């Protein structure tokens, strides 16, 4: 029994169902307000009948700084998924998919070339989730995360930079099929 709508600042007072889950990070207020201030249509929530937030997605639209315009790693105008979370009790209902689709609609409204996101290479569930939604690995960012989520013997973990073309990229010029073979270093990611 849910409703999808834009984020409002008061929603942070109803975040517990999502944010008490150990996999969801709680940020400083300014972080949430930054997304609300700059990209309000890309910050969507899903609330239950009592007004509790049972899922939310935070996204933004941007391009790399102009100084990198001629770099091979330059990113043109695109949308980015910063955070996506669904409360444990609300999972397996397609809420995550609906939130991503709504963000994609907002990305199209902002005329973005593509949507991208970062995910731990060990997070097979998330990778499968995004692949099902049409995302593919564009590049592998070596040792992007400071610690490994599943292997305590390792002190770093790779990130998959996953992408999906938005309507503007009708020819699919900003995605690639063999992205897992393209490795970059964290300093190449801005």
């Amino acid at each position, binding site marked *: 029994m849910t409703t999808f*709508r834009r984020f409002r600042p008061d929603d942070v*007072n109803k975040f*517990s169902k999502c944010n008490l889950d150990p996999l969801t990070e*709680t940020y400083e207020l300014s972080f949430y307000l930054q997304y609300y*201030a*700059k990209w*309000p249509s890309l910050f969507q929530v899903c609330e239950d009948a009592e007004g509790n937030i049972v899922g939310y997605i935070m996204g933004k639209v941007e391009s790399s700084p102009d100084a990198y315009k001629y770099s091979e790693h330059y990113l043109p105008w695109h949308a980015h998924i910063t955070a996506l979370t669904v409360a*444990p009790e609300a999972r397996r*209902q397609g809420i995550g998919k609906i939130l991503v689709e709504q963000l994609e609609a907002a990305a199209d409204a902002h005329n973005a070339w593509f949507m991208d996101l970062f995910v731990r290479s060990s997070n097979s569930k998330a990778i499968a989730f995004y692949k099902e939604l049409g995302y593919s690995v564009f590049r592998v960012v070596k040792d992007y995360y400071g610690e490994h989520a599943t292997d305590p013997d390792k002190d770093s973990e790779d990130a998959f930079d996953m992408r999906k073309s938005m309507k503007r990229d009708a020819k699919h010029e900003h995605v690639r099929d063999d992205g897992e073979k393209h490795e970059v270093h964290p300093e190449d990611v801005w």
Partner: protein
Amino acid sequence: MNRQRPRLKNGVDLQLQSAFQDGNWPVVIRLAEKRAKTLNDQYYELVKVCAESQLDDPSAKFAAVAAIWKFVKEGSTIKDVDAIDLMEWATTNLMDPDDFAETLGPLRVRCVKAAPKDKIAASRCLESCLLHWDLASAQQMSPQTSPDKRKLYGTLAQKQIERAAQATEQVEADSNGAGAKSSPRRVKTEEETLLLYDIIETHGSPQDFQKLISSPVFSPAAQFRRGRKEVALRAVAKFKRDGDWRAVFNLCKECLSDCDADGQLTLLASDIAVWRNLIDAASHIKDADPESTAVIQKLLADLLSSKHMRPMYRRNILLARVLAVFQLAHDDESDLVDGHPSSLRLQELIRYIDDQYTSPACFSDVKSLLESLDVAGLKYLAFEHLPQLAHGDSTDFKVTSTQLLAFKTQYLLLTHRKSKSRDQGQRLQCTVCDSTVKSALCQTCLSKLSEASVAFYDSVTRAEDVNAKIKTEVLPELAILIAFCSLSLAFDDSTQTTQSLTSQARRHLIRATLLLEDQLAQNPGHSQLSLVLTQLHIRLGSAYRASDIWDVIGVKRTIIDSLGPVFYDRLSTIAPALLSSYDSWGSHLMDLLQSHYQISLKLRMPRRLIDAFESGSYSSVMGIPEYIDRLRMSCTRAMSLAEARRIERFLGQTSHELESDPRFSEVVDEAQLIETIDYGSFPSWNSSTIRPMHINLRLGPAPSNRRCHLSLLAEAFHELLTYKPPASFKASAGSSEYDHIYFIETLARLSNSFPKFLAGPDDEMTRPELIYFETVSLLCTLMSLCVEFDRSSDIIDVLNQIIGALKLTLESQRSTLSHDADSSIERTVTMLGSMHNISMLRDTTTAIKSGVQWLLSHNEKEKARDRSGKSGLPKDLVAQLKDLQTAAEASIKEGQGWISKLKSEVMSRDFEPKLKRWVLDGDHEIKKILGMQSLPGLIDSWQSNVKGWQQVKWA
């Protein structure tokens, strides 16, 4: 503004730049003075003033503040925006933030007006005014500079945006779009459309709004078709406020009927909120429009066949179908006839449950609908239909989760008023087991439910290879349900939450705690288990264990405001040493509570507000200040200060002045503090006819406007009596007179403020808290009256009455610590759970003792000053005061004695075996699954607390 040292503006020579960056202030002063003379530039004069403000000399320190006031009073202008930025930096922390609107704000306005074409300066000045929330100055920076022209600004805004909207409509009407490039500024983005709605709603007439919602481009339905849902939701809210149910119905219907390019229904509007609005609207218009119900039925059927279906949307639509029947069908028929579902609503509800019973959210989805059924219908679902659905192998996830749903539904029924009726002899009877009951809860039925749940829990956990999903999703909730059955008996309606619990009730609490602790060991970090256990431990006085559990679930930063009170409220009264700032764990816990406000409210408004302006996010421009203002007035924020101050007082730790803390200085008497607690993650399975369990488990009422004000006033009273200036401070001649005036004025202010908050409902604080606040209020009045004592007046009777009342408050406070315990272990457990009352006794006695001490000392000074015998208090009154002081001292000794005794009991070797015997004494099904492995942890926690109490200063 920016507290970091700014850079001097471009063009300033390197020598001065370097000296400024190095903080070499004497050199900066010398060089700036030289440059000012040579270049005749006001900027350098102000650099000099700012440098002077960095010196330690107190007279020089305020050079920048004095300069600003001089500019303001003389009406002169600082033309260089870099200079104003410097002045703002130099006066940070030296000027009251509220003075901005009278000082830097107007100076910034003058600066902008002096150079209207300098957009960079204008935007910097506007930014500063917004961050300081000086809207009067900010508004004057717009081209229209006339003050007090709110209506004019409103009309202008409306006309401007209407013109832009018309331009959009014209371009849209022009099919080839030829005029798009040449047309004036248009309303294009969703944010601009929302702004259009805001302005028309605020400043326009009903006709203007009607015109807007009829626009082919800007009507809510047209906007929705473009994927802009927010505009439609805004319009529905407005229609509802206006009671225009026909408009609500039409708009919701139109949005729900939205199709994509392939003619498929989009489902974008298929939210439960939209369905509810549609059904609500139909219930209002169905008499005038009988077809409205059929329209809803058709929509439901159409949407269910959409190709875009997702499980979540399907759930919403199926539930909307049930809601429609509950709200729109006749509700006068019996739900059950001859043991079979008869009413349409029960049949629809069963259809929904049969489709959704494996969803973890099924119970919360249908809970309110279950409560609307008649008792026979609810009983049928709870005891027949759901158990039948759950039939099967208990190692199967589907079976166990359905059995859990059946148990939850039974628990809902047993806690519902509907499950009791009056027999012919007017005796209360349980309609489930037909036995006579004494209270709103049937102990027999609850015990049976507990027994069945325990047996089921036992059978599941004994099975080999328990399914991982059963372990993580079913067993924790099953354990909570068993605990709730036990707790419901503890909090039967004969017990008030604010009163102390009976020994039997405490035993229920301990059993529930031990059971849930065992379960938490299997499911570390489980949020529901952790929250319930945090409350249980605090209620039992076992705060140290509560802090461990709390730390694991990681409540921090943004969510501390809404969840903090669950753990921190009254924690200082339970375990003051736990939060000691001299201890790393205590500092860590206090930092988690306080840093959110320090970081988020550093500036009057956050810089994100400027981001919103720059991004054209107009709704965020409105939303951010509203939220920040509410956060500033949050009860949790005030609570964070009250808790910290009490801990410091209890432990004799030094602290900063209360007046200098914004959490105190911003809370004037008129401030309305806002209560925000997020109970969303707590299990809420009781019926709505009794108190939710999380309310029962709380130590007392949640932080409220009244209690927070009273707590801060009481802290101000303590500070007034105990304040000592820093050792380095050298009092000047005559300063003691000023100190005395300050003291008397503060006392009068407190005396005036307390009564504003003391009157009110009893359920906003615990009884010991109320007694304590009344005591401090009486003391303020007594002290004020004694200081102004006039022998010729009849005031003596009043004073005697106040002293008598104070003696009574002391007695009342002591009486809250009496209990019904029979055995020594019961007494010990009761005392361990009564630390809040002991703290309030401690605060009451300390307030009386220090207040009376001050009065007696003041009286001695008065007598020494005027030896005529005419000054000072009469001997009888002094004797009464000394009696009161003696009574307070006796209570202090008594309290100290209780703590010593408690320590010897809790630390003794036989405490654990005695406790274990007592916990397991008597028949109770829960014992079958109680491992007792968690008992040592509970005892450790109590022992730590009692040891911590040894640090408390009583006088």
